[in-house]
């Protein structure tokens, strides 16, 4: 057991306690949490500072407005409903199209309007929000993800999670939905995580349920070696989010839309640690190094470049 402990230390793996004590408590001001916990506010902030996000079709804030639902989506064939305060991808409902008077969900189920309205009511009453306080339901553009990930996704939108520390991207992984995760891109729900080489934007190792894997469990396609387009642009976008929220230790979830390019999906003030397993690389040394940096470049693009070069062996 102490052998494992030693090797974890040697690999510089950040544990939950260290993440909370040394990074989140120290760099993330509590008062800024609502900015990222409320997806609606994040969206407004991002739009205001010119960061690309999926278009908002409408917001349902009170139970009475649920009746306005069909009016909101009358111009849109497909859309996503999500709680503004949802955590861990819960409460997100993706509608991919319509059939007769029903709605087709991304897992193939057909929902009636009644079902959807019940789901919205649940969101409003705070079922999916942290602490159960009343919530809002966002209805927004459904991302048509880049064909790059077609072979390694099972019904859902893969996204790219990047950890941004003091505005510098330090680690990335792409999260691929599986049958088990029910189209959601959360690792603990069964999604596959694949590490990304910061320099090249090429996928490296993959994990599923904390096990290293080579092929996607549902599609069977090889995961490693995919090159993510607009890589530097994507990292720059992630780095920009630091200014947006003011959080020192931040998780940025970006999706690649086939037409619109990288879009910021959401921000996370307490990003998970599995990204280290997906990259087979501990973050602790890099984070400590950045913590000691006296000067951080002002432009997001420079910070993205710094993040890409910091990791090279001569820097460590």
């Amino acid at each position, binding site marked *: 057991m102490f052998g494992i402990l030693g090797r974890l230390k040697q690999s510089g793996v950040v544990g939950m306690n260290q993440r909370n004590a040394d990074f989140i408590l120290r760099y993330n001001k509590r008062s800024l949490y609502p900015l990222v916990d409320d997806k609606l506010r994040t969206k407004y902030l991002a739009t205001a500072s010119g960061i690309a996000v999926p278009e908002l079709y409408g917001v349902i804030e009170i139970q009475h407005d649920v009746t306005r639902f069909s009016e909101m989506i009358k111009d849109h064939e497909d859309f996503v409903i999500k709680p503004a305060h949802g955590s861990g991808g819960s409460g997100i409902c993706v509608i991919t199209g319509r059939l007769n008077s029903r709605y087709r969900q991304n897992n193939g189920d057909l929902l009636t309007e009644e079902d959807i309205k019940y789901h919205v009511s649940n969101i409003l*009453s705070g079922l999916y929000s942290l602490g159960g306080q009343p919530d809002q339901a966002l209805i927004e553009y459904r991302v048509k993800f880049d064909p790059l990930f077609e072979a390694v996704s099972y019904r859902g939108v893969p996204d790219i999670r990047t950890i941004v520390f003091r505005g510098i991207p330090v680690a990335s992984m792409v999260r691929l939905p599986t049958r088990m995760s029910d189209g959601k891109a959360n690792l603990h729900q069964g999604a596959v995580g694949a590490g990304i080489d910061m320099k090249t934007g090429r996928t490296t190792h993959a994990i599923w349920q904390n096990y290293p894997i080579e092929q996607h469990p549902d599609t069977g396609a090889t995961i490693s070696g995919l090159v993510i387009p607009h890589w530097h642009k994507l990292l720059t976008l992630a780095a920009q989010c630091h200014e947006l929220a003011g959080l020192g230790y931040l998780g940025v979830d970006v999706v690649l839309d086939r037409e619109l390019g990288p879009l910021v999906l959401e921000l996370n003030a307490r990003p998970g640690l599995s990204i280290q397993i997906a990259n087979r690389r501990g973050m602790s040394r890099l984070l400590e190094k950045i913590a000691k940096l006296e000067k951080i470049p002002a432009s997001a693009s420079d910070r993205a470049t710094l993040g890409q070069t910091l990791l090279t062996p001569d820097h460590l």
Partner: protein
Amino acid sequence: MRKLHLYLLAFILCLVGLGLAYYKVAVIGLPLSASEQAEVWDVEARVSFRAKPDSAIKVTLPLPLDPPGYSVLDEDFVSADYGLAIEQDNAGRIAHWAKRRAQGKQSLFYRIVLFENAEAAQKPDVAPVYPKIPEYPENLTPVIKGLLDKARQQSADTVSFSQRVIEQLNAAASMPELKLLLKHVNQTRSLAKNMGWILAGARIPSRIVRGLRLQDNKEYSDLEYFLQVYDGQQWRSLNIKDGREGLPPNFMVWQIDDDRVFSIEGAAESSVQYTVARALQETINIAGSRSAERGFHLMEFSLYSLPVHVQNVYKVLLMVPLGALMVVFMRNIIGIRTFGTFMPILIALAFRETELLWGVTLFCLIVGLGLLLRAYVEQLKLLLVPRLAAVLTMVVLLIAGVSIVMHKLGLETGLSVALFPIVIMTMTIERMSLTWEEAGPAEAFKQVSGSLLVAVIGYLAMNISEFQYMFFAFPELLLVVLAIILLLGRYSGYRLTELWRFRAFARHKP
């Protein structure tokens, strides 16, 4: 800097906590643990009888009065609706119970708690009046005279003289000339008294001492009799069976030179039973009363000065921080996931009442049934708060149902299910079913068994009686617990479960 501050604070908290505790142990003399306590004797006299119909009942029971070598800590009577009067005079104390009418079997109790205390003030022996020679019946006079003469020849002083008399009387069965005397004397109850009567023939002052040998878990149906003779300076005790001098060890004197005995009017099948048991809990009171005697007032401001029912609340309350420490340890050091932060403590508190095995069984039963009902309600598409309220209502009904079924099955411990915190149970059911839906049954079971494990460990920690005693007698030790919690608050190392979670690193890295 921040770390130094924390270490300093933790150090000061430990210092204050341990210092205060040390003061209490060293100066006031509070015992450190329950096992260190001195012996306390719990003596109970139980009068039982069957009341005769239509007749008033009067019970008389002699009571001990300042038994030498013991301090009385507590004394009480359990006498239902009997009138109770206690009469005290130079000879001793007597309890009178009375009731105009009663039916069937009746029991009356007298209980005294004694603490062995050699320093207990002994009344100085008052020189008795030397008795006059009694007028013996004519046919017995020569026999007694002969007996006394023989004893006088074989003895040197009062004590040995009395011993010879006792020996002769006990051996009387084999001596034909004493048979007549024996017939007069030989009734155990009055043997001691008759010995005094015979000794008076030699003008030796004597008296009868009655009492009990204090031995754990002993029952006596009568007090034991000893004869005391006055040798000119003090009273000397003699065994009436063999004349041996001295009272047995642990002998508690109930009555001295008091002719009054247990008696009852208006009842049949009456008996008195004395029960002796060793007890330990009350000794803290000894320290309390002693410290008051010696002029320390700290004890007056301790938790022991509170009313007993409030004390019991605090006995539980003071253990909660220990449970919280367990939760911190299990979550941050071990890395076990639970539903809600302190839900396991509340479950653990409920376990105190239900006992562990039952607690776990009932918990599983209620949560399992609750989940089934919750799954049914799910179909009705209710809003969150009404749904929670509905599940809560069903949980209450479930608990009531379980109680009734358990009672009918004769499983009385099942009744304590009512002590489960129902709101917490409801939230557990709700969160578990959500986790079930979102993360699958495996994750839900993982979390619920994690909660249960932490609850069990919390219960075991909170139920260690040494800790219960320690935290109640030395509440300042909670400062030490606080210091440990603060230090754990800055622990940034790995959790035990993370060694497993990140095991891929251990395998693939050189």
